[in-house]
């Protein structure tokens, strides 16, 4: 019993890292420009399909394919920002929420027409390793490693490069940053690009162990909301922590009650945190 719980907890935590990456994308965009990106889910799904197409049609190793997916995600973010977000960046929240939602509809609509909604999967089994009594699928371990690497890279980028520092400056105070000569529109586009890049990468990682359709991004988008609020909107480190909490819960809850109760607990917790501590467990940005 105990060993079973421990192994399902480990499973959940490993998945939690990947959730964390997806949520970090959402929280980064919120932190820099106070926009909730409702096109987050479809971008996650596009990340899954990007990895899948590279693997099945060009035979690219899914983990190498992630780099391509990341670049594609970054470019997509620039496009979405320029087409939909830039004009409404200073408008009330409703406008940016609906603008990103319309992007969501466009991507889902095109995706359904092109890929249909039948489930796909990436057939790239790597077996599993045993550590003590724990049996861990290698794909999950690699996904965790990938998630940690991308998080570290994001941290280094934000704190030790000029564009990264510019992003943090704009997040802090856009007008002051403009006065210092930082081109804020470019920085906002870059932040949006980084956010969608993280979403696409998370999608790519998830596609290595779960089957998916073009609609699969939706649940992960909702999970990302929960995670962002748990960790504090706009706080990337909080997003990672929130991801681990959510993953851990998903691992533990089935030991005590039917699996179908997992979302009840998750969203109940989400509403509770919003009510009692809206700045999240670690505090907002």
């Amino acid at each position, binding site marked *: 019993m105990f060993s079973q719980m421990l192994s399902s907890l480990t499973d959940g935590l490993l998945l939690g890292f990947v959730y964390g990456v997806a949520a970090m994308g959402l929280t980064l965009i919120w932190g820099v420009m106070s926009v909730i990106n409702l096109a987050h889910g479809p971008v996650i799904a596009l990340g899954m399909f990007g990895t899948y197409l590279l693997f099945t049609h060009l035979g690219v190793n899914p983990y190498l394919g992630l780099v391509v997916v990341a670049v594609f995600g970054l470019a997509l973010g620039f496009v979405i920002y320029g087409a939909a977000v830039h004009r409404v960046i200073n*408008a009330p929240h409703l406008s940016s929420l609906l*603008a990103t*939602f319309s992007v969501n509809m466009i991507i889902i609509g095109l995706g359904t027409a092109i890929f249909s909604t039948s489930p796909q999967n990436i057939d790239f089994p790597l077996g599993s390793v045993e550590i003590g009594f724990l049996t861990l699928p290698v794909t999950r371990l690699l996904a965790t490693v990938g998630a940690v690497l991308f998080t570290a890279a994001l941290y280094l980028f934000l704190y030790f490069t000029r564009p990264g520092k510019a992003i943090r400056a704009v997040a802090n105070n856009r007008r002051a940053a403009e006065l210092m000569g930082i081109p804020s529109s470019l920085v906002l586009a870059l932040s949006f690009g980084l956010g969608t890049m993280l979403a696409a990468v998370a999608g790519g990682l998830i596609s290595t162990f779960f089957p998916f359709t073009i609609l699969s991004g939706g649940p992960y988008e909702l999970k990302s909301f929960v995670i962002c609020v748990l960790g504090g909107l706009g706080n990337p480190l909080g997003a990672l922590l929130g991801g681990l909490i959510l993953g851990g819960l998903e691992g533990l809850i089935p030991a005590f009650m039917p699996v179908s109760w997992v979302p009840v607990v998750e969203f109940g917790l989400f*509403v509770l945190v919003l009510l009692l501590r809206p700045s999240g467990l670690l505090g907002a940005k």
Partner: protein
Amino acid sequence: MKFWRQPGFWLPVAIVLLWGGAVLALRQDTIRETAFTVLMFVALASSLNILLGYTGYVSFGHIVFFGLGGYTGFYLLSEQGWPLYLAAVAGGLLSALIALLVGLAVLRLRGAYFALATIGINEAARAFVSNFGPFGAATGLFVNFSAYEKYGGASQALWTTFTFLWLTTLAVLVVSFLVKHSRFGLGLLAIREDEDAAMVMGVRAPRAKTITYVISAFFPGIIGTLYFFKNGNVEPGDAFQLHMSIEMLVMVMLGGMGTLLGPILGAVGYQGLRGYLLTSPIFKDLHLAVAGLILLLIILFVPAGAVGWVRHRFRGLSRVLE
């Protein structure tokens, strides 16, 4: 102010009055079904507009009241044998009660946090109902056929349901107008413009927002009961569609938020467009993408919606188009 003298009040009410009356006079099943769907969205969008248009608060999960009220009403009607009228009002009251409890807590949050919380509440309710035994858990409930017999058989029951929906829609419009033109409504509009300034001026913002939330949650509960009674079954997937929630927002935006006529135009326009895209041979695979593109263009270039745009262009009409 005598509201029955206002053209801005009469125009929307007359449209709905004539429309429903014509459907009842023609007595054709297909026309009734179409009118039911569109009128339902008119009523849903108008009740969302009471919150969204007047206070500026975005309730992304407003469909939760449609779902919960619908479930409650359906349960009372089908399992407990309540008459339709009572069950629907009970569904509405339950939605209002939940809105009161939720509102007291959640409306302290502002802007995007509030929007996120409403999504969370909808998902939590869906997940809960999917596990809740008395409501049939994941499979939902089916109507007990004896329930139809009280209304003279299934076909007559559908006409009764339609009439009730029509009256509800009229009620939403009247309430919406009364709220907008009351002292209370002025307070709401002040909150929309600047909440802090409104509070300094003596508007009790938390209380006013909660009351508005309760009003705008009451009607979706009634409509939910009618809709699921018409369908004959209710299940979690149908009752708590986040997608429908967002369609309601789109309709309000299309027509013009904060106006009485806007949600009517928005709902009719959106349903018409959707119907055209779904059946057109060129767009039928891409209907979602095309609808998304149109929505994007409206938000970017005509954010005030159709009614707002006309009012701005033709000042003389602003008395007629409320």
